[in-house]
């Protein structure tokens, strides 16, 4: 099966895979996506170029399906979905909750349908995995009139990574027949993306996640502040005379690793640099990770495995040994030759291809 995956963010990245191969046949990005999405005809032209690149890549073969990453699906999408007229209606119903994210994706889907008529389009939602969070985890300590009116609840925003990393571990465990099946399988899942996220997963259900209503809550990111005392925001409003938009810009673009280290750095710099400001930022971040791991383990009542995913998953080897030395329960029954963590360095593109292929095959099996 040949699948084209798309990740619309500030730009649109795409990759075309034959599901038998681990590396993409074609990959690229549309830098002008945010502009062209406002002008359907231009986006259609650009998507048509992508279509031709894909068709040229494999002789006599065309794409079989399209998968699009969607950052937010609210409670409306507790699972990934195949695009139909009804799905599109449900997407439009979400616009009020994510007015910046959803409209361009609806446009993208519509343009894709013109360029790739007859092709199944799969929507993969980053929030879907977290719609099953227990209520005690997703509610906030506020009056119901705010939480209900604004549909405030906690989500995770790296659901695709967490879901895939858990599935990988569970499969591995089953294959190696290592696990006591009478006990629930508890995984501490750390996603190392520019905005990192920790989830506690028991039997394929997320029971905690560090992100909140938005990815701003939780762990500090490359430019995002993470958890904050609300009074700090009110102090910024009072003492700096800043409005919500200005504060939001500082918290989302100037904070996190950038704010602490004084320059733009990523997770590789954070874990490998010897510069003193970076080391200080690393101390803060590692400590926050340790707190979040402790919380997650308390929530699960223990832990069976630690897994790192995300584009910086390889940094898990550095972070993992630091965490394992402080969380003895991760080591299980005793010292073993293998480290007690697993790095799952699979790209999001690849995860999307596998997920979409699995969905389409099971649909096919059902219709047959």
């Amino acid at each position, binding site marked *: 099966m040949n699948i084209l995956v798309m990740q619309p963010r500030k730009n649109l990245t795409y990759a075309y895979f034959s599901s038998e191969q681990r590396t993409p046949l074609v990959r690229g990005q549309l830098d002008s996506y945010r502009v062209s999405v406002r002008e359907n005809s231009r986006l259609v032209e650009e998507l048509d170029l992508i279509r031709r690149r894909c068709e040229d890549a494999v002789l006599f073969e065309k794409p079989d399906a399209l998968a699009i990453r969607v950052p937010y699906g609210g409670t409306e999408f507790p699972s990934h979905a195949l695009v139909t007229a009804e799905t599109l209606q449900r997407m439009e119903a979400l616009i009020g909750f994510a007015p910046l994210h959803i409209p361009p994706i609806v446009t993208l889907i519509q343009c894709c349908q013109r360029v790739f008529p007859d092709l199944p389009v799969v929507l993969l939602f980053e929030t879907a995995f977290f719609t099953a969070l227990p209520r005690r985890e997703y509610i906030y300590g506020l009056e119901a009139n705010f939480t209900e009116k604004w549909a405030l609840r906690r989500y995770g925003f790296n659901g695709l990574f967490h879901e895939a990393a858990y599935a990988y571990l569970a499969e591995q465990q089953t294959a190696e027949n290592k696990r006591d099946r009478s006990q629930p399988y508890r995984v501490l899942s750390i996603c190392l993306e520019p905005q990192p996220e920790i989830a506690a997963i028991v039997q394929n259900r997320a029971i905690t996640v560090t992100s909140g209503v938005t990815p701003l809550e939780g762990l500090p990111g490359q430019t995002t502040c993470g958890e904050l005392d609300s*009074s700090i925001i*009110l102090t910024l409003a009072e003492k700096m005379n800043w409005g919500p938009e200005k504060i939001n810009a500082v918290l989302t673009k100037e904070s996190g690793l950038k*704010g602490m280290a004084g320059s733009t750095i990523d997770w590789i710099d954070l874990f490998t640099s010897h510069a003193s400001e970076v080391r200080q930022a690393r101390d803060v971040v590692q400590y926050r990770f340790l707190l979040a791991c402790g919380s997650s383990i308390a929530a699960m009542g223990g832990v069976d495995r630690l897994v790192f995913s995300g584009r910086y998953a390889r940094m898990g080897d550095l972070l993992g040994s630091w965490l394992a030395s402080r969380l003895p329960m991760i080591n299980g029954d005793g010292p073993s030759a293998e480290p007690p963590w697993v790095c799952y360095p699979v790209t999001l593109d690849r995860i999307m291809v596998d997920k979409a292929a699995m969905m389409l095959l099971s649909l096919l099996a059902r219709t047959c």
Partner: protein
Amino acid sequence: MCIETTTEIMNILVFNCGSSSLKYRLIEMPSERELAGGEAQRVGPKTSEPARIFHSVNGIVEEHRYEMPDHATAFDCVMGLLARDAKLTPHGLGHRLVHGGTLFQSPTWVDEVVLNQLDEVIDLAPLHNPPAIRLVKACQQRYPDLPQILVFDTAFHATIPDYARQYALPRALQDKLHIRKYGFHGISHQYVCTEAAQFLGLPMEQLTAVSCHLGSGGASLCAVREGCSIDNTMGFSPLQGLIMSTRCGDLDPSITLRLLDHVDGDFQSVETILNKKSGVLGLSGFSADIRDVINPSEEEHHKIARQATQLYLWRLRKYLGAYLAVTGKPHAVIFTDTIGETVPEVRWMVSSGMEAFGLRIDRQKNWHLETYPADIAASDSAIRILVIRTNEELAIARYSFATLRENLTLV
């Protein structure tokens, strides 16, 4: 007053100043005997009921009505009540101050310099600091010879390391506005840790513990390593952390921004929402006291009460796990203050199923608690679980006495 004769035995008058109340206790040191105590209520602008002082000596409580437009007047009234008995003469005053900022990191003797410095920290806790500081100044004016010691709720947390103290914000902004984790409830956390160390037969400087101060109003957890605070769930202000009676605790920053936008930037009204209308009260809609919510009397409240209780306990459990992780294998988990001392359901729900951390609670010991301090851990638990009565006034008296004695000896 003759200071030389008082270095052996001193009566310390401890004040705990609320926004409209003044609690006081007269404690003889070093015997720690309580000689008198009471509370001035409805201090400030007139309310529907008269301002009054409940004054207690030897367990006999008297009610006195006075006009008390401010805390200084309330102080005069308290001094008048104590003056009726020569044995109740205070030799020193101990004040609780909620926020000492970075200026005050240990108990401090009040002098001219300190009086001026207090103006720099007055705004840090807008509800609590102003009346307390005004009271200190009034005392100094009226009784310039009576020594005054200030004990700060933030001081115990001065040892929190930078990596736990810092927020992930631009450095220049943090420096400019003094944004950092200050931590609160320090007097209580330090007091119960001292008691725990004694109970376990350890010197305080060796004690590693997680202290859970669960008040009927505010609540916080404190991670303690080798006798020093290394983290507190409250942060820059007391708003962060656990779900409290009327405070929201942790919140996505985007929610605060949305609220701010909703009220056109009126930060004071957001502050009121998050501090006064959220937490247990906001969730339940009928009570700010978690005890009412755990066991609601009205049938109609059951569902909403269960949800509020679950969130309260869940947040607590997650923070306990976080602090067990950062303290390693501590000697003890300590429960204290109204909820921590008297609500076994809370202790049970938070500490059970925590064997992964080496913590195992004993059901019987937890439910049939008769004396304090008590150890409610199972005998095979690697970590003790202690229930200890906090006594912030006694702690203030101890610090005040120690500070006075030290300084007077030097003289």
